[in-house]
């Protein structure tokens, strides 16, 4: 071979390896082709948080050991990492890092100061993870920038202002990548914001579309508000949604109306708060919506990862979507139309006599917050909240970490002042041993409870299911554990020494399955 062609070949290989090290959208769409990576928040865009890896099984899970750990600068890490091509990407509040998958040693770190006048109104200073596409890592900051970092250096490619943080907007969630775009949602439901879901061009950071969760005058749904209440109507969108590439629909949960516990000035259903919306991926246009809690006065945001699955309904295969809602009901909907298929309570609730034929709650009067206080289950954090459920196509079960907590809800006056708490009340939980939790497995198409594993207290950690037949979860008291996915039997547990308030993931290091989870300041990686 001539010298020049050798040179050509070498440079071609260089380019080729550079390209494979990029995370093209097709790789995310076909996530099952590379189960050793974890390329998007829930591993696939369907919201499953299920890993096809099967080396770790009920038979050998007791052999799990810590392989390495990484310490974050901030407490209570809620991150769900991305794993791609030998690198683990993690985030914290206004920070990110690329870690060597073999050792946990950082390749690079990135951070930005949190402005001194930034305030998180109604939530902690956390970040739940990054997103990746092509050569960029997308990180959302507390002060509302969406930042694209070069995955090789951690340097900024672009940065876009999503909103002004001063009135109470914030970003805590992991962005969701859809073809060519990055979708984000906002926090701020306790500050009287008007919520939205945004999509940005992944290459340039230019906004592609915005969907306002509170319809303005003249828009459908506006009639579910009265007067100017819509302007401070809340409807935050602070948990990562899901995406169906075939239907090209983005599914996203919408938070509580404002003010949270005093609905006097906002009579009506208050659309699209406490709803799931299906938006067209190209335009953000609303295809359908389903409202779980009309006129909510308990702060039951519908901000959950929607789970897309195929199920059999009256003998017919249907494209479904499953949501275990903060209001204590599980819902299975048709994901093409939003039609209600099935629903039932999956945790203790005292506010509704079940759901009617269209999935609307049959509310028991007298359970609103009051001056003297009214005891209601679930509490404001809900029967489950932001942490992820998991769906295993192998068992057909929907796994969810459940909170069994009752609270006395109080109603107060609410004065709106931008950038301050606009809540109209609060709650006092029962506390102590009157509160507890569970991991429950629900039949995804019906919501029937297949098994439960009881937890000492109401959890703040999501679950992961695997093809090895395991479900992983965590507790406030620091346990990280594995259950049998079919029966719920506890098989292994490890005391991390810190509260687990994060979602676990699974991936390969050198072809061997590993599991990672954060507990307070520490990210642990376990392997056999």
């Amino acid at each position: 071979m001539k010298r020049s062609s050798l040179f050509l070949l070498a440079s071609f290989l260089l380019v080729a390896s550079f390209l494979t090290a990029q995370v093209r959208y097709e790789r995310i769409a076909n996530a099952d082709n590379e189960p050793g990576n974890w390329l998007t928040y829930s591993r696939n865009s369907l919201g499953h948080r299920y890993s096809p890896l099967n080396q770790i099984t009920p038979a050998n899970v007791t052999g799990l050991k810590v392989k390495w750990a990484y310490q974050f600068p901030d407490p209570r890490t809620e991150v769900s990492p991305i794993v791609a091509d030998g690198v683990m990407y993690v985030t914290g509040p206004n920070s990110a890092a690329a870690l060597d998958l073999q050792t946990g040693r950082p390749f690079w770190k990135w951070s930005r100061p949190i402005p001194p006048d930034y305030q998180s109104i109604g939530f902690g200073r956390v970040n739940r993870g990054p997103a990746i596409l092509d050569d960029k890592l997308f990180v959302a900051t507390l002060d509302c920038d969406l930042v694209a970092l070069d995955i090789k250096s951690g340097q900024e490619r672009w940065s876009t202002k999503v909103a002004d943080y001063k009135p109470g907007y914030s970003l805590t969630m992991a962005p969701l990548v859809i073809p060519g775009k990055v979708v984000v949602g906002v926090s701020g439901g306790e500050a009287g914001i008007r919520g939205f879901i945004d999509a940005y061009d992944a290459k340039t950071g230019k906004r592609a579309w915005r969907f306002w969760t509170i319809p303005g005058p003249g828009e459908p749904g506006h009639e579910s508000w009265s007067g100017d209440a819509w302007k401070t109507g809340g409807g935050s969108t602070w948990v990562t949604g899901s995406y169906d590439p075939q239907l090209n629909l983005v599914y996203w949960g919408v938070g509580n109306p404002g003010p949270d516990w005093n609905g006097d000035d906002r009579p009506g259903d208050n659309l699209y708060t406490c709803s799931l919306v299906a938006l067209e991926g190209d335009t953000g246009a609303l295809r359908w919506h389903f409202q779980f809690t009309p006129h909510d006065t308990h702060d039951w945001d519908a901000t959950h990862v929607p789970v897309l699955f195929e199920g059999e309904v009256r003998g017919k295969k249907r494209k479904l979507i499953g949501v275990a809602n903060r209001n204590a009901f599980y819902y299975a909907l048709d994901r093409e139309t939003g039609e209600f298929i099935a629903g039932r309570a999956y945790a203790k609730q005292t506010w509704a006599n079940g759901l009617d034929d269209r999935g609307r709650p049959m509310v028991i009067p007298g359970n609103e917050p009051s001056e003297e206080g009214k005891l209601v289950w679930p509490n404001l954090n809900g029967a489950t909240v932001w942490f992820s459920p998991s769906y295993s196509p192998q068992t057909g079960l929907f796994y969810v970490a459940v909170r069994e907590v009752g609270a006395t809800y109080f109603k107060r006056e609410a004065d709106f002042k931008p950038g301050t708490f606009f809540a109209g009340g609060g709650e006092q939980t029962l506390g102590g041993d009157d509160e507890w939790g569970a991991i429950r497995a629900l039949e995804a198409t019906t919501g029937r409870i297949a098994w439960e594993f009881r937890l000492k207290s109401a959890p703040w950690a999501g679950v992961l299911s695997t093809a090895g037949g395991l479900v992983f979860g965590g507790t406030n008291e620091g346990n990280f554990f594995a259950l049998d996915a079919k029966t719920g039997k506890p098989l292994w547990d490890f005391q991390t020494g810190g509260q687990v308030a994060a979602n676990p993931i699974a991936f390969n290091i050198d072809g061997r399955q590993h599991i990672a989870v954060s507990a307070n300041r520490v990210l642990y990686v376990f392997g056999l």
Partner: protein
Amino acid sequence: MGKRLFESQCALCHGQTGGGGRGPNLHRPQLNKAPDDASLRKVISQGIQPEMPGAWQLSPREVKSVAAYVRTLGSIPLEPLPGNPSRGERLFKTKACDTCHMISGQGSGFGPELTGIGSKRSAAFLRESLVAPEAAVPDEFLLLDLVTASGATIRGVRMNEDSFSIQIKELNGEFHSYRKAALKDLRKLRGKSPMPSYADALKPEEMDDLIAYLASLRGNS
């Protein structure tokens, strides 16, 4: 408005008219933890860890009006306690309270430390603690009975618990740790206290003396 808010938000612990309960009597012109208006508002909105929860649900205006009401309570005269504190101090030893309680570094730490108990509790609550200790057992003194794999029954106070293990202290001070799955039985004796009732063991004057002593304990400072 301050009075109404106090009755709905504070009375549960401080009594309907601020005369105290689980929380201290507020019929005092000088409050140790809230000497001025700013610190009083701070105590109300942020609470005092771990015993008094912050009233974060109140707006700044509401906090201000409750604070103003608390100040009016200060002019209500404190009812003098009947007992004799120095006789109470001697009873604390002769009745062996110090086998379970520490005061200023003296005694045993099986039960809660009482060094500053007079600034945290009302006299009525202290009386109830002696007569019916089971009425308000804090979580960290939950009594339990467990049956080990070998069939032994052990009674102790729960020191800690997670979903898989439990740590207890026996009444003799010994620590034990168990895997919950390995236990034959685990019974939480809610509504029972590790402390015996002194309703019958103390004469009425002795009870008054002990309460006067406990109420005089205002910390080490």
